[in-house]
Each structure stands twice: as C-alpha cells, then as structure tokens.
C-alpha cells in the first residue's frame, strides 16, 4: 500500500499534447477513480491514461449519474418498502438479500435518521462493502449523524483493504474527528494515497495541522523511497502556507537527497509559486541544505526560481538564498537568462557589472 499512484501503460494518442508531471498525476488519479466507478481494474482503462484529467472527471461524473439514474425508481421503491418494516427486518434484508451495492444506491433515498438507525444495526464489514458504492454527496446528512466510532471503524476497514479511492471520496465529507480517527495508525502510503484521491483537497490543511511531525516525515520518507515526490508535492501545493512551511522545514531536517528529489519535482511541475514562499520561515542552516542540491544547479531551474521570486516580490528571501548558495550554484545563477534582465537586477539591487549582486 506504500506504492505511488499506479502508473498505467500509456497508449499514445498522436494528437495528445505533452503533459507535465502534475497533469499526468492528475490523469492517473482520475483514471483510478473512473476504474472504481466502472468496477474495473486500472489496466482495463489504461487506454485512457493520457486523457485530459478534466475530461476523465467529466466522464466519471456522467457514468456515475447514469448508473444511478437507470434504476432510480426501483431504488426509491425499495427505500419506501424499507421504511415500512421494523429496522431489524430492514437490516436483515439489507445484509442478506438487498446486498451492499443496492443498499448503497438506496441510502440516498432514505431519510437520514432512518438510515442512521439502519446503519447502527449492520456490522462494520457490511457497511464497508456498502461504502464502496456510496455517493458521498447523497449521504452527507447520514454521515453527519452517524456515531463517530462507527465511522472510524468502517474507515479503518477500508484502509486495511487499500480502498484509497473510496476513502478519498469521503475524507472531505465526514467530520474531521472521524477522518483523524481513521488515519490514526494508518501507514504513510495510505495517508499519501487517500490525500491524493481526496475529492475536495480544501479539507487537507485542517487534517495535516493535526498530524504529528513524525507522521509527515514518514510520508516524505516514503515519497522518497518510492520516487513519488510529485505525489507528495502535489499534496503540499494543496495545503495552506503555514502547512507548506512546516513540511518544507521538516524536509530540511532530512538527508540531502530527500530535498533533491523534492526540488526536482518542484522544477518538473513548476511549483515554485507554492514552494518558494514556504522557504521564508526556514532558518539559514536549513536553507543552505535545501538550496544547494544538484537539481538547483541547473541554470534553467534557477531561472524559474528567480522569475518566480521576482513575480512574487520575494526579494528578502532571495537575498538570503543568494547568501547561502555555494559557488557552483552561484555560477549556474549567473548563467540563468533572467539574471541579465535589468528589471530583475534593479529589483535585487544588483549593480550592472555585478553578476550576482556580490553575494
């Protein structure tokens, strides 16, 4: 479960535009979600691997809506019938006759209070099966009223089964306390994948803020071991500035090759606008470790750094970076095209003849 989001075999489409690492990751995530919706293996939808992630998302939504709509009248009738019998009978019928898929489909047609009473009569294992086919947006009222302990037990079962796509759909719908209870004790790979599959990543900063440093370090270490830096970075870019600074600070405390892998990913997906401001809170020693890694010795990379810093007016940070860069990196900086830009030089207070402001 610690592996990065699976990389399907890509069948090239001649007209496809080249996609950067972030777009490819987004497509892989969407493809996994589509495969789940179609109840297929990832390899069975690999022919769509180079599709636009926005298109894949639209397709998944269309497929899900159609699957539900085709039998909507039947689901409503079963829900009505269920409300006419004692809850114990309905629970028995759900488990032994209706089954998890149809139970999931009719859940959205049940009044939330009734669905909660029913859920509390069902074993967590069955509820985990039901959750595989649940549409979170249709059962938000039920989830809000369910016992947190029951939610956490079902969530942990899904973690144990490696159902990261499903967990990702629910992480933004269940109460934060339940989400934290589910991830408590989960492995770093589980955390990374659930967060990547999160349908709404705006909930992630609140969760990350409650996670221990050692958990976040474990995720960074796993991303390094699995060469899943882009995956980890994609999550970092989804966080709030405070969380980004915290993670960059933790990265600075790890062996240098972790930072090198991370910054290679930053360059690959051009995430400097999200990452550079996070360096401002890092103390000089850690900053020296972070910036003097092989990937940042490339003039093209330093060019992007300088352009971004200029665009965001991060002059103070950039002067600190210049002060800790080693000679090889300073030489690369001199070769960066933007270093010759008079506007940039004036912004940094560099003289016309000073190649790097005398740093």
């Amino acid at each position, binding site marked *: 479960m610690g592996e990065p989001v699976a990389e399907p075999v890509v*069948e090239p*489409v001649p*007209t*496809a535009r080249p996609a950067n690492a972030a777009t490819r990751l987004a497509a892989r995530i969407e493809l996994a979600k589509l495969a789940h*919706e*179609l*109840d*297929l293996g990832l390899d*069975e*939808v690999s*022919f*769509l691997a180079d*599709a*636009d992630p*926005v*298109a894949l998302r*639209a*397709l998944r939504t*269309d*497929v899900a809506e*159609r*699957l539900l*709509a*085709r*039998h909507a*009248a*039947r689901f409503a*009738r*079963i829900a*009505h*019938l269920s409300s006419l019998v004692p809850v114990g009978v309905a629970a*028995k*019928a759900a488990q*032994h*006759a*209706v*089954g998890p*898929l*149809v139970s999931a*489909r009719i859940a959205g047609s049940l009044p939330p209070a009734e669905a909660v009473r029913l859920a509390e009569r069902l074993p967590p294992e069955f509820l985990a099966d039901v959750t595989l086919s649940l549409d979170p947006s249709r059962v938000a009222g039920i989830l809000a009223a369910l016992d947190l302990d029951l939610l956490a037990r079902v969530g942990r079962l899904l973690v144990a089964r490696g159902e990261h796509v499903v967990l990702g759909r629910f992480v933004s719908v269940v109460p934060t306390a339940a989400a934290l209870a589910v991830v408590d004790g989960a492995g770093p790979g589980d955390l990374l994948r659930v967060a990547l599959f999160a349908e709404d990543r705006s909930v992630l900063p609140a969760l990350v803020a409650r996670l221990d440093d050692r958990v976040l370090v474990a995720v960074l270490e796993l991303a390094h071991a699995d060469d899943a830096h882009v995956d980890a970075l994609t999550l970092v870019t989804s966080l709030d500035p405070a969380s980004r600074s915290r993670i960059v600070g933790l990265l600075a405390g790890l062996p240098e090759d972790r930072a090198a892998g991370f910054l290679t990913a930053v360059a690959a997906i051009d995430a400097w606008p999200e990452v550079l401001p996070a360096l401002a809170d890092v103390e000089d020693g850690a900053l020296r470790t972070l910036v003097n890694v092989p990937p940042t010795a490339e003039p093209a990379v330093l060019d992007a750094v300088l352009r971004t810093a200029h665009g965001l007016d991060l002059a103070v940070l950039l002067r600190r970076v210049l002060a800790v860069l080693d000679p090889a990196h300073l030489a690369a900086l001199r070769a960066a095209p933007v270093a010759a830009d008079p506007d940039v030089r004036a912004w940094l207070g560099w003289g016309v003849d000073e190649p790097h402001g005398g740093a």
Partner: protein
Amino acid sequence: MSAPPPPPPLTRLADRLGLPVDDLAYLARFDDARLERLDTAVAMAQHREDVEVRRSMRDAVRLVPAPLRRRVAAALFPQGDTPQGDAAPTEPPGAVS
C-alpha cells in the same frame, strides 16, 4: 437490403449515458477503437448493475413472509416493471448495437 451500419461509438456511448453527443465532446479526440473499448466498459458496468439490481429485488421479495409476498412484490414491481427489469436492457459486454 443490408442492415444500416452501426452508429459511431461516440454516439453509442452518448446513448448509453443518456446524453446528447455534444455533451461528450471532451472525448472526441479519441479514435473509434478507444471509444469502442470505453463504450464496452460502460456497457459492462451497466450490465453488472442490472444483474445485481434484479438479484437484489428478487431476493428481497423471497425474504418476505409468504402471506405478504404478493403485496411486497406488487409494491416493488408495479405494472410494467418486472424482476427482469424495465430499464432499457443493456446488451452483453462487447456487443455492438
């Protein structure tokens, strides 16, 4: 007289999803072979769901005590509906309409 040629896979997929073809314009850059595979995948998903819904309703009726079974069946399968299904039948996976 020969049968008319089957509609292009994008049209078939749109029909299957109950959408105008224009709503699937985002898939237009894929060639027919890929769209054919996608249409088959969606057909398989719908077929599986149809089978499971039928089984589910049939088993639910069986669970009802005999004296009430007829009334429950009538509630679940009103006129025009049957345990075999009233939705547009999904052809078996791989079939080309």
